[in-house]
């Protein structure tokens, strides 16, 4: 109960600041918190990355193994994306099977990687119709201070860049780097007090749940969109968010290239 009151006070503070044209942490509306990417920290995984956006931390691990292709894509590798919002990451996360939020998180990250064709799935065929590489992208949120979506998407593509196909382990020749040919970047905006702010922190998320995530590829094409939250989005705001997402994704992609 006391926590609810604190939340309400924080919420009022967030809103009153926004009305003055400011954010509680002093950021501009179109400014991300500092982003840090570390790769290869889990030796047992085929690829891994830790991404920090401000205090938010997400680890993504990539595991690969040979398996059966889908019947409608017999000559393509398979991507399986899963997200776990473990109770360690937030006082509001509970153990148990994935809820709608973690499913949505995983599916939006998956869409960005799949639709940008970041992984060249044609090169992951071992024997057509019988055996292909399965790529498991496991998202592990470890500290949720807002915007898990962008942190997860960034950690996923960073981990893929760091992935080596474990061919030797399965008697399929020498290990080789996973063929990654695009850099999809997800940008999440929060619509609050009729304003658009990027990279919401937890206090801002507690004040509004009106999200929209737009993922773009290296050519500024839009590859995935998810409007999330029970709100009505005007056409003008939608266009504003598209431009903002393209611009921010370009900046983040520069960081990715340095990894």
């Amino acid at each position: 109960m006391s926590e609810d009151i604190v939340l309400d006070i924080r919420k009022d503070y967030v809103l009153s600041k926004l009305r003055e044209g400011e954010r509680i942490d002093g950021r501009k509306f179109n400014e991300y918190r500092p982003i840090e990417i570390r790769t290869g920290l889990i030796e047992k995984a085929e690829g891994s990355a830790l991404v920090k956006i401000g205090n938010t931390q997400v680890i993504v691990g990539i595991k690969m193994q040979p398996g059966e292709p889908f019947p409608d894509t017999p000559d393509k590798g398979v991507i399986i994306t899963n997200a776990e919002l473990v109770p360690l990451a937030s006082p509001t996360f509970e153990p148990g099977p994935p809820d709608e939020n973690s499913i949505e998180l995983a599916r939006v990250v998956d869409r960005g990687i799949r639709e940008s064709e970041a992984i060249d799935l044609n090169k992951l065929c071992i024997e057509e119709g019988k055996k292909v590489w399965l790529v498991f992208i496991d998202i592990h949120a470890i500290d949720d201070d807002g915007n898990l979506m962008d942190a997860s998407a960034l950690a996923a593509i960073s981990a893929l860049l760091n992935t080596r196909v474990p061919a030797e382990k399965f008697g399929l020749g020498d290990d080789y780097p996973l063929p990654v040919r695009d850099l999809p970047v997800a940008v999440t905006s929060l619509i609050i007090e009729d304003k658009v702010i990027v990279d919401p922190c937890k206090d801002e998320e507690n004040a509004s749940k009106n999200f929209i995530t737009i993922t773009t590829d290296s050519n500024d094409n839009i590859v995935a969109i998810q409007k999330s939250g029970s709100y009505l989005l005007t056409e003008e705001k939608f266009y504003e968010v598209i431009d903002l997402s393209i611009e921010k994704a370009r900046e983040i992609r520069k960081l990715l290239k340095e990894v």
Partner: protein
Amino acid sequence: MASEDVKRLKGEIKLIVDGKRLDGRAFDELRPIKIEAGVLKRADGSCYLEMGKNKVVAAVYGPREVHPRHLQDPIKAVVRYRYNMAPFSVEERKRPGPDRRSIEISKVSREALEAVIMKELFPRCGIDVFVEVLQADAGSRTACLNAASVALVDAGVPMRGMISSVAVAKVEGHLVLDPTKEEDFYGEADIPFAFFIRNDKIESIALLQMDGRVTKSELMEALQMAKKGALEIYRMQKEAIKSRYIIEEADENE
């Protein structure tokens, strides 16, 4: 895999020939739509809807008491939405029960309806919307939302306006309204929209998802195409509701 599928994948079969789609529709033309309100006896509101080969039925229960009670909200109604596909609704039998796709669709669909339902009028109550997909053929989430919206009106749930939903796909470089299964599967992008419509005017976007690859200008064009399609659906939804009540009045006068 059927040999026809292989040919399509290799680009040997075209989805657009001489500026027309395989089913003869123009790019901005909807599939045939059939809507009937008040089809279920037990539900407080219901609707049967066909959109091309999609056949869906929606039921609304409530506003009613929420169970379990700890889910109650002291200041507004709780809206629940369940999108469920029948095992026989698709080519390969679907395992019964919610999968990850259904859970995501239920979430975004619920959020679209929540934005227009006047929840503040029903504190501590629950409004349950159940939609069963009896047959699916691309755009089932849009068909379900259209049906749910009519069922909510049929149940007398106060709303700020209607929700009308339609998807736009990109197929062989062209934007097409209300794609079929083939167009969705072999196309380059799929963009389901739902709009908040009031007094015959589109006010804003209630649902928006997208996967595929489009440029910004294509996306803007898709939005305009979807708006036009949604207005047509809105008129049919209104007709379905009107005709339901005209019949009821006639019965009472007998």
